[in-house]
């Protein structure tokens, strides 16, 4: 059980997954999956970006740091990029990121990199469901203490303020 668990109304843990998707292909593909009424678990939050190469690895690091149990990054298939080669640049970056995060102890199953085109609503549904299943099997991600000293002091200060009132 995790105190910041969300998704659904029960107290039961349910994975929280952040998807960073490209506007031109995957977002449209996800839209198609929605309008086609394909059934997907509601654990994925989508963040729409202009291109998969807009995904700064810091986004993913931050998401995992702040308690996302899994991440999805998806864009156009190689060769189909709206900006010609954005996804090829992204591919090199994610290759290193994928290996590095694994080396530093993040399970491979928490990271999904995929190509989903605008017509592949079904592939998006599969990507989402498979990722959720994998993350569910792995359990909640272990988060580290994210609060900095200053934030801590501020919180302590506001608690004192509450008491004074």
């Amino acid at each position: 059980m995790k105190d910041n668990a969300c998704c659904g109304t029960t107290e039961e843990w349910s994975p929280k997954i952040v998807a960073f998707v490209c506007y031109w292909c995957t977002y449209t593909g996800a839209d198609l999956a929605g309008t086609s009424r394909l059934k997907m678990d509601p654990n994925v939050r989508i963040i729409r970006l202009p291109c998969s190469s807009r995904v700064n690895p810091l986004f993913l690091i931050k998401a995992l740091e702040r308690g996302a149990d899994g991440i999805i990054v998806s864009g156009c298939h190689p060769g189909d990029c709206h900006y010609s080669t954005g996804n090829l640049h992204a591919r090199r970056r994610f290759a290193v990121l994928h290996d590095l995060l694994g080396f530093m102890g993040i399970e491979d199953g928490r990271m999904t990199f995929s190509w989903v085109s605008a017509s592949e609503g079904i592939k998006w549904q599969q990507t989402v469901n498979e990722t959720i299943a994998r993350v569910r099997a792995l359990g909640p991600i272990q988060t580290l203490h994210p609060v900095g000293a200053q934030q801590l002091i501020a919180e302590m200060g506001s608690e004192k303020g509450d008491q004074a009132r």
Partner: protein
Amino acid sequence: MKELQELAAKLLRDQNVQVVIGYEDGPAGVRPAFITDANDAARLIFDPRCVHNLATYLKPQRKHIAKLGKIAIVVKGCDARAVAGLIREQQITRENVIVIAVRCGGVLEKAPAKAAKKVELTEENVSVRCAGCEAREPKLYDYIVGELPTEPPVSSQRAGEIAQLEKMSTAERRKFWDEQFSRCIRCDACREVCPMCFCLQCVALRAQPQWIDSSPTPAANRAWQTMRMLHQAGRCVGCLECERACPKEIPLGLLTRYVAGVVDQRFGYKPCDDPSVPAPMGEIKTDDEEEFIR
């Protein structure tokens, strides 16, 4: 060594350069030396205790050194890659720096504080980066000095470290790194010493948006090193200065060596001292491996 001293003296006397950056014997072991007077050139030395990568003094941040005038720098083969990296990324121009290369037979893992002047390299004390070094005689230089010494021994203790870590389970690796990073005090020595970390404003210092907390919390330490390694991918020259500078002895060299391995295996790039070879993360190939894509 005489050759090096004479060359430095000549460069200074002829006003070709205003400062020669090299190594000298200090009260606490070998240290970097900034020679501005030809008469001081006799202080310069070079031996296996000269572990430092002096190319870090060419970074644009080092304004106090740039102020001295035109620089001549003493480099080993591994340091020459850093000079090439700075030229490749337009931080310095080739004409504005005189590169004095030394033929190198390997250096120590750690600079001894106060040791005998003569050090023999053994499997125990040699730096792990010297194993199979292909740059003992650099190609990037204006002057090259010294005889080519015999090949360095291969570090016995540290060669298999990465394979050992890779054999662990993910949870074990996570625990290993969490323990290592828990010691980090975010002194930023790894960043300051690195010749390739030269952003005028580091993303780790940005407060809005604050991607990486500036306090040494476990989460922020992990994020900082992850990001540092990603920024270094394909740019790291493998001098292991971050590891040497770390006051908390966090094995940062494991990360740099691992990422260098990934970049070599995936993109076929090894750090080299040719500034015209493009860095791999700015390049693309249509047939890059994508086995990790689901």
